[in-house]
C-alpha cells in the first residue's frame, strides 16, 4: 500500500458487517485478493488507490510497456452522471507507475461533445493523466427515427468488427469497435446510476459504449414494439461476446438515483469506489447502493443466466474499506 494511503486509516471488514477496528490497518500482503472491493470515503482518488491495492495493485494487471484501454462513462459534469475525474486521475497515475506505455480513453462519442464547454474539466483530466482520447468514428444518425441507417463509409466501417452472438437470445449480431482489442489491458470504468429504461446501469451496460451506436438504437424497445426486457436481454447478450474486462473500477461517489443516465435527477452519495472482475457481482453490489435488489434487476439476472458472473454476493469474498482522515 502506498505511503499516501497509509497516512490515512483503513478498516477492513466483511461487507455488511460492523467495523472491526478503528485503528490504521494495512491489508495483509499474504491475503489472496478478494473478489470485490469497495472503499468508502470522501476522496475518489484515495478510494480508487485503496481498492486497486486491495486487489493486488495495478502491477497485477499492467506490465511494463503495455497499452491500457480505459472505458469511462462520461455524460457531462452534472452530479451523479459521469465517472469521477478523481478516479481517472488515480488510474492514470497507477498505470503509469506500473509501466504502461500508453493509456487510451476509448469512446465513440463524437469530437463535438469533447469540445463542449461542459467537458473542459474532462479534457484537462485526460491531458494531465497523459491519457490519449481515442474517438472511434461513427456515421451521422439517420434523418428520421427508425429510418434504416445507410452503410457506414469505408473509413468508419474499418474501425468496427461484426461479432456473431451465438448465445444471444435477442441479439444475433453486433458491431463493436476494434479499439477494444487494440490494447493489451482493458479497464472498464463506469458509474453506478439509475437508467430510466433499464432501471440501472453499471458494468454490464457500460459495454454499450463499445458497440456501434446505430446497433445500440435497436436495443431500445420502441423499435421492436416489445417491452423493455428486449434491451436488458440485448445488454446481457452483448456481454457474452465482447472482450472481458481485465479490471473494473466503478464510480459510486455520487450517483443519479432518478432520471438516469443523463439527469438531471435526484442524487445519492455512497462515496464509494468499487473494483473487481465479475461484472454480474459488481452490478449486484452497485444496484444495492441505489436501493435496488440486484438479483431482481432484469439485466443483471439475464447476464447471470448467461453464466457471466455470480449473482449471490455471499458466495464471494467482498471486502469493504473505509477511508478516514488520519487523526495523528
Amino acid at each position: 500500500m502506498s505511503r499516501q494511503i497509509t497516512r490515512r486509516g483503513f478498516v477492513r471488514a466483511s461487507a455488511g458487517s460492523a467495523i472491526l477496528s478503528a485503528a490504521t490497518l494495512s491489508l495483509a500482503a499474504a491475503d489472496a485478493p478478494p473478489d470485490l472491493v469497495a472503499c468508502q470515503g470522501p476522496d475518489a482518488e484515495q478510494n480508487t488507490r485503496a481498492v486497486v491495492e486491495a486487489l493486488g495493485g495495478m502491477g497485477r494487471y499492467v506490465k511494463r510497456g503495455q497499452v491500457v484501454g480505459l472505458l469511462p462513462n462520461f455524460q457531462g459534469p452534472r452530479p451523479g452522471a459521469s465517472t469521477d475525474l478523481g478516479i481517472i486521475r488515480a488510474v492514470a497515475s497507477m498505470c503509469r507507475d506500473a509501466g504502461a506505455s500508453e493509456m487510451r480513453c476509448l469512446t465513440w462519442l463524437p469530437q463535438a461533445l469533447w469540445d463542449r464547454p461542459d467537458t473542459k474539466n474532462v479534457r484537462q483530466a485526460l491531458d494531465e493523466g497523459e491519457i490519449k482520447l481515442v474517438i472511434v468514428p461513427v456515421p451521422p444518425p439517420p434523418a428520421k427515427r427508425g429510418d434504416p441507417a445507410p452503410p457506414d463509409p469505408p473509413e468508419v466501417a474499418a474501425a468496427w468488427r461484426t461479432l456473431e452472438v451465438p448465445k444471444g437470445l435477442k441479439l444475433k449480431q453486433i458491431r463493436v469497435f476494434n479499439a477494444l482489442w487494440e490494447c493489451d489491458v482493458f479497464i472498464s470504468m463506469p458509474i453506478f446510476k439509475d437508467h430510466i429504461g433499464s432501471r440501472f446501469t453499471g458494468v454490464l451496460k457500460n459495454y454499450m459504449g463499445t458497440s456501434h451506436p446505430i446497433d445500440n438504437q435497436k436495443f431500445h424497445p420502441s423499435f421492436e414494439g416489445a417491452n423493455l426486457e428486449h434491451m436488458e436481454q440485448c445488454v446481457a447478450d452483448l456481454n457474452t461476446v465482447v472482450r472481458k474486462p481485465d479490471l473494473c473500477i466503478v464510480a459510486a461517489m455520487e450517483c443519479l438515483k432518478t432520471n438516469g443516465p443523463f439527469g438531471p435527477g435526484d442524487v445519492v452519495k455512497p462515496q464509494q469506489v468499487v473494483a473487481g472482475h465479475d461484472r454480474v457481482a459488481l452490478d449486484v453490489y452497485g444496484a444495492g447502493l441505489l436501493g435496488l435488489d440486484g438479483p431482481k434487476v432484469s439485466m443483471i439476472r439475464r447476464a447471470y443466466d448467461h453464466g457471466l458472473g455470480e449473482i449471490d454476493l455471499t458466495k464471494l469474498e467482498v471486502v469493504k474499506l473505509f477511508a478516514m482522515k488520519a487523526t495523528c
Partner: protein
Amino acid sequence: MALLLVSITALFLAQAFPELPSEIGSWRVVGAAEKHAGPGLYTYMNGGAELYLEHSFEELMVRFYERGNDQISVELYRMKESGYGVFTLLRSENGEPVAMGDAGFRSGYYVIFSSGKFFCAVTAQSEFTDAAQAAVEIGKTVAALLPPADSASKKIEPLPERDRLLNSDKIIAGPVGLRNVSDALAGLFSGFAEGAAARYGRDKEGSVLAGFMRWRSAAQARAAFKQATQRASKEKDFEAKAANGELSFRDFEGKSGLAVVSGSQVLFAIGPEPTRARELITQLQEKK
C-alpha cells in the same frame, strides 16, 4: 414595440427557439448554441434519449452559462405537441413547485419546467453554494422568452381528481415512461398509444397508483391484456389471477395490483389495499 410584437408572433407561430441572452445576472453565455434534431438526440444524450423520443421530441437547443468555475446548462427541448409529458416524468418527488412557464419544479441543483411545446432543464453542473438559486434565476429568464401556452395536458383529464396527490400526475407515451410509473406494469403491458397515471391518498406512503393505458382499438387492448395475463402467469412473483377481463397481481414491492380491460383502454390501480384499488378503477370507469 412593433418589432417586439412581430418577434413574439413569429416565435409563437414557428415555435422556433428563442435567442437566449448573452448574460443573465452574473452569468455569461459560453460557446455556441448547440442543436440536435430527431434521432440526433442520441449523439447528445448517451442514454435516456428514448424517453424524449417517446414524447415526440423534435429538436434540442443547448447553451452553457459560466460564472468563474461554476457552470449551468440550459437544455431547451421542443416537442411536437407538449413539453408537459416529459416534465411529469422527470419531476422529482423530493422537489418543490416553482412558478416558471406552465409548470415548474426545482430540486437541489436543477430546475425543470414546461411551456407549451417546450420542456426545459436548467442544471448546475456541480453543487456550488447558490446552485439552486442560480438555476431558478436563469430558468425564469428562459421561461419569459417562451410564448405563453397551457401545456398541462388534457391527457390527464381522464384521471379522477378526488384525493389525487399534488404533482403526482404522469403522462405515459411509451414503455420507458411506463417503467417510470411502475416496473410491474412495464413488464406486463406493451404496444399502447398513450396513457396517464397519478397517486391517490393522503401522502405518498400508502397511496394508490391509478391510471390508464389506451390502445388504438378495443381489439388491440384486448390482445395486449391477454398477452399481459400470459406474461403474469409465467412469473410466480406476480401471483397473478385473471378472470372476466380483470387481472389481479402483486407488483415487485408486494403491493396489490388490479388491471381491467375496458374498451380500448386498460385501467389499473396498484396499492397496499385491494379495496381502494378497486374503488379507483370504478372512478376511472366513471370518468371514461
